[in-house]
């Protein structure tokens, strides 16, 4: 990566098939503190190393996926469907 992004549904596909959104953060609850909302919308950990981000397979299956990628080496460690991740996080 990020020449090729492994889509959990379609396999390795070139970057140009995707739209990148950025940090895969959990959206705060509607009634969360203003501080949490500010944090979600504006602040970023911006780590060197492992990073989770949203990619959309726009010219493919049109699923949003969460890609775990290293921001220094660009190696992808994992990618999974965003809905699956959201559901599993909601459960925990």
């Amino acid at each position, binding site marked *: 990566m990020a020449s*090729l992004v492994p889509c959990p*549904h*379609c396999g*390795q*596909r*070139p970057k*140009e*098939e995707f739209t990148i959104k950025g940090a895969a953060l959990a959206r705060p609850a509607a009634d969360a503190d203003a501080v949490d909302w500010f944090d979600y919308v504006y602040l970023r950990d911006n780590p060197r190393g492992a990073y989770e981000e949203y990619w959309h397979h*726009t*010219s*493919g*299956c*049109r*699923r949003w996926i969460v890609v775990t990628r290293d921001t220094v080496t660009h190696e992808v460690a994992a990618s999974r*469907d965003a809905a699956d991740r959201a559901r599993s996080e909601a459960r925990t």
Partner: protein
Amino acid sequence: MSEFRPTLRPALATKQAVASAALKLSPLPEGTIVHVLARPGEQDVVSFLGSLAKPAAHAVRPVSPGQWFIVHEEPMPHKEMKSLFAALEPRATGVDQSHGRVRIRIEGKMASRALSKGTAVDLDPSAFPVGQSAVTLIGHIAAHVTRVGPEAFEIIVLRGFAESLWDDLARMSLEFT
């Protein structure tokens, strides 16, 4: 104006098939394409769809998780379409895309070589066997590709891009035709 008969104007009406011994590119008739979207969590929609679809090969084509195209050569009358939709419920929603998508066929020894000029999908039969579908970029245009035979592919593309994609495919085929 009930005497009026609406006439269909195919998106690729002006395009002639291009053919040689190594490759043939042809527009397919605008029949029926039904986009099926399963209700989340619905398990076995595929076999159910198989029972609904007419018994043609490759009539049901995966689009993405929980989504398929049902493809027919012939247009489906409005009533029939409505009853198909009704039959799909509540497992799935049907959306008529018969006019929103256009089919193109590319076949022959050099078909996969020509297509590889556009798509990053590995079209080697070992990686992309007959019956397999993929949505992918062909050049700058997104399209749905299905291998319908050892050396034959069907491409489904948004109507608005159909002419542009046709021209691209024709250019990609030029050295083989």
